[in-house]
């Protein structure tokens, strides 16, 4: 078992930083390339949400906490931003609260599809926390480790 915590500003250049940090942290679990790609994509979606929706382009702190447990990687990503108005709407594929901004509305769908477990907790005006986990080696995959 291993743990880490990280706090960084809600700047878009930190998206690549966050997803690469999580990938590096997960490496001892020997994920496949495809599992690693799933995790990086899910982290990128969650961090993008903090930046674009949580803080709406303004500056605030994003916290990232990771834990490994056996073959599992647990990830928690939080902001103290605006919170989500309607979570079930936000989870609907292709729904976006910012339709004028050329957004796909697929962020939560990707997190749910690419990770083994997913949950989101949000309070209006207080912020949002996404928790997601990935079990590595859960199914036989074609690519090399």
């Amino acid at each position, binding site marked *: 078992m291993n743990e880490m915590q990280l706090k960084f500003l809600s700047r878009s250049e930190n998206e690549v930083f966050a997803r690469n940090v999580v990938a590096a942290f997960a490496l001892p679990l020997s994920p496949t390339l495809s599992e690693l790609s799933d995790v990086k994509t899910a982290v*990128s*979606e969650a961090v993008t949400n903090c930046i674009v929706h949580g803080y709406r382009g303004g500056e605030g702190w994003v916290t990232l906490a990771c834990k490994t447990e056996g073959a599992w990687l647990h990830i928690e990503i939080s902001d103290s931003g605006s919170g989500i108005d309607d979570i079930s709407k936000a989870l609907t594929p292709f729904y976006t609260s910012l339709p004028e901004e050329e957004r796909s509305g697929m962020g939560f769908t990707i997190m749910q599809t690419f990770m083994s477990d997913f949950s989101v907790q949000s309070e209006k005006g207080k912020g949002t926390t996404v928790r997601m986990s990935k079990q590595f080696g859960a199914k036989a995959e074609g690519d090399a480790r």
Partner: protein
Amino acid sequence: MRTQSARRGDSLYIYLTGELDEHSVAAARAEADGLIDSNAGLSRAVFNLAGVKFMDSTGIGFLIGRYKRLKRYGMGMFVEEPNAGADKILQLSGLYSIMPKL
């Protein structure tokens, strides 16, 4: 994100290289739109994703935006050589139904 282009017959090829996310998308959008506008008479555009090492759902929004722009010019859109990660996202979002993979 780096953008290069080539014209072959009546097709515009747009080659994207790098990581496509919220941070890089604005520049990629401006460059791709410039290329589309200056090749508006062609019949189709092919986005080559071989150099895209990483893409999240920002890439879906980016591709749909370019699809709409091309449609206004009466141009079709195609995608080729996505890596496994990009391919998974494009399939999940159903994008290949409007921009087939070559």
